């Protein structure tokens, strides 16, 4: 019965024999554990797409709702905290898997002719993944994401000629706001995953076309079938990776830095660890050379990765034949790892943060005006929004109804305008009076405080 069904399906679609063909692919006998890292990155990407779709069931891309919707996922949705943690830590795991995969491919010289385009598709995948991570950071609309986007947009704006336009296109509006969030959202959940899918297909197609590289030591022509030996290795490594991700996500919740607040001077932003190497370069580069750190070094790095198959002229992939390239590559790899570790280790801890937190709170005239309003007990006779008693006029929209000069004169001497009013003259000092007026005039469509 099942066999008949399979035959029917295969006759109509060819999918079953295609799968069998794929599984029984002949790979060099020397294919082994080191060839499993790409599969790990692929499996993590699949999981990331799944957890992303789940988050999208609740997430709302609007500045007034994003933070709360993520909080709801964390607190109100069954296993919501776990799915969000999986998605958050998944990004880090993917970056680690891709990094290890690239280092392995680099050391084996597997980017050499005829596999140059496989390498380039892989480099593109790396940067699409980093772009997805960058745009994803803003979505929870928390402090860290806000400042990461802020710095990222500033960095893009420093590019020569097109920089300012690129920055403006990323912003969408005058500053990071509703328009920026929907842009980042569209990139994060639609455009970049589509690009990711296309590059994954291209990468896998090219891998199939040329097959895994036979190691220099394997001089035979012997092959093995991908299924079951290599697939089993893949699945062991994938299981270890997914298992570790599960444990990390179970133990460490996705971070909450409080809602985005550009006026908060107490927050110390730092980038995700995988941007730390670049962050350190930004810190160490003196002002006049800023463009070196924001544009020249990143561009050179991308160019170096893309040009690698042509920079390495050795015919053989053996390390002994490529000492200079491998040595140079190891220096770059060591620099990236070193800067990353240095950056993560030198992040200000809680104690240092508490130290810089000392000092005055940010002065806010409108908040100060609200305090005067409360102190003078205005709410005993006036309503703002739903607060107060409606003995006197509703003040909810004062800023739309009254001119400043009139409001000032009225507050000082209400009887002058309405002889039989019960409202007493406002007797506060000039500073408090100014604050009260500023607060009342700020009341427009919706009370801000």
């Amino acid at each position, binding site marked *: 019965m099942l066999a008949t069904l399979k035959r029917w399906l295969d006759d109509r679609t060819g999918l079953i024999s295609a799968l069998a063909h794929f599984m029984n692919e002949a790979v060099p006998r020397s294919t082994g554990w080191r060839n499993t890292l790409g599969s790990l990155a692929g499996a993590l990407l699949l999981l990331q797409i799944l957890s992303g779709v789940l988050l999208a069931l609740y997430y709302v891309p609007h500045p007034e709702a994003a933070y709360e919707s993520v909080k709801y996922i964390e607190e109100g949705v069954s296993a919501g905290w776990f799915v969000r943690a999986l998605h958050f830590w998944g990004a880090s795991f993917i970056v680690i898997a891709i990094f290890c995969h690239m280092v392995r491919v680099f050391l084996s010289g597997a980017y050499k002719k005829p596999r140059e385009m496989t390498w380039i598709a892989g480099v593109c995948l790396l940067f699409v993944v980093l772009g997805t991570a960058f745009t994803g950071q803003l979505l929870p609309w928390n402090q860290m994401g806000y400042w990461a986007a*802020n710095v990222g947009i500033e960095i893009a704006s420093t590019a020569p000629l097109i920089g300012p336009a690129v920055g403006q296109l990323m912003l969408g509006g005058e500053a990071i706001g509703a328009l920026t969030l929907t842009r980042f959202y569209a990139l994060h959940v639609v455009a970049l995953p589509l690009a990711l899918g296309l590059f994954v297909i291209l990468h896998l197609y090219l891998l199939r076309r040329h097959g895994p590289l036979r190691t220099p030591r394997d001089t035979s022509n012997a092959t093995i079938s991908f299924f079951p030996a290599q697939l089993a290795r893949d699945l062991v490594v994938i299981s270890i990776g997914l298992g570790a991700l599960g444990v990390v996500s179970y133990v460490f919740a996705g971070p909450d830095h409080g809602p985005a607040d*550009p*006026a908060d001077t107490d927050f110390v932003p730092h980038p995700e660890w995988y941007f730390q190497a670049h962050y350190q370069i930004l810190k160490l580069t003196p002002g006049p050379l800023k463009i070196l750190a924001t544009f020249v070094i990143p561009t050179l790095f991308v160019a170096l990765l893309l040009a690698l198959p042509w920079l390495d002229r050795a015919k053989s992939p053996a390390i002994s034949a490529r000492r200079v390239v491998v040595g140079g590559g190891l220096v770059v790899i060591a620099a990236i790892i070193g800067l990353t570790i240095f950056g993560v280790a030198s992040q200000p801890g809680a104690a240092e943060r508490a130290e810089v937190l000392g000092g005055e709170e940010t002065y806010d005239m409108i908040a100060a005006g609200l305090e005067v309003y409360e102190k003078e007990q205005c709410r005993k006779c006036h309503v703002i929004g739903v607060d107060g008693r409606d003995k006197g006029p509703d003040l909810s929209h004062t800023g739309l109804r009254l001119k400043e000069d009139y409001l000032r004169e009225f507050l000082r001497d209400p009887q002058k305008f309405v002889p039989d009013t019960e409202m007493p003259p406002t007797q506060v000092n000039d500073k408090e009076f100014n604050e009260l007026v500023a607060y009342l005039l700020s009341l427009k469509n919706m009370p801000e405080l």
Partner: protein
Amino acid sequence: MSEAVDRRRALSILVGGLTGLWTLAVGAVTAVFVASPLKLSGRNKEILLGDMTSFGFEFRAVKVRIPTEDGWHSSVRQRVVYVRADENGGPDVISGTCTHLACTVRWHPDRQRFICPCHEGEFAPDGTVLAGPPPAPLERIPAFIDGSGNVHIRVPA
């Protein structure tokens, strides 16, 4: 035979031309749509900071609320400026936005300097760069006092 070749050639040109045409059309609409934010033009807005007596000779961080039309969404954007009284009692207003990569600097009264938490740029009270990566001094913002004693600034919005 040459008729068949001509026909084949003409059809190839047609296929290539139509594909190119549609790619161009879709690309043009996409480009215009995506580039919409480029037509934004900044206007200066006058913003009220507070009564001058709120500020002494030490810098005080002040929350600035800038009414913003964010596309379809009206919102109030916030940023921080630092205000103190100059020797004549007038307002001395300095932007809290770091000139390196636009993080908000913090005033450290004990060290009498602004320090950016992002990349550790340091600025003197007059805004000049003392250390770290910032390429330019902090912006000094022109301010004035109105008849009621309130300090106002003009900022791009």
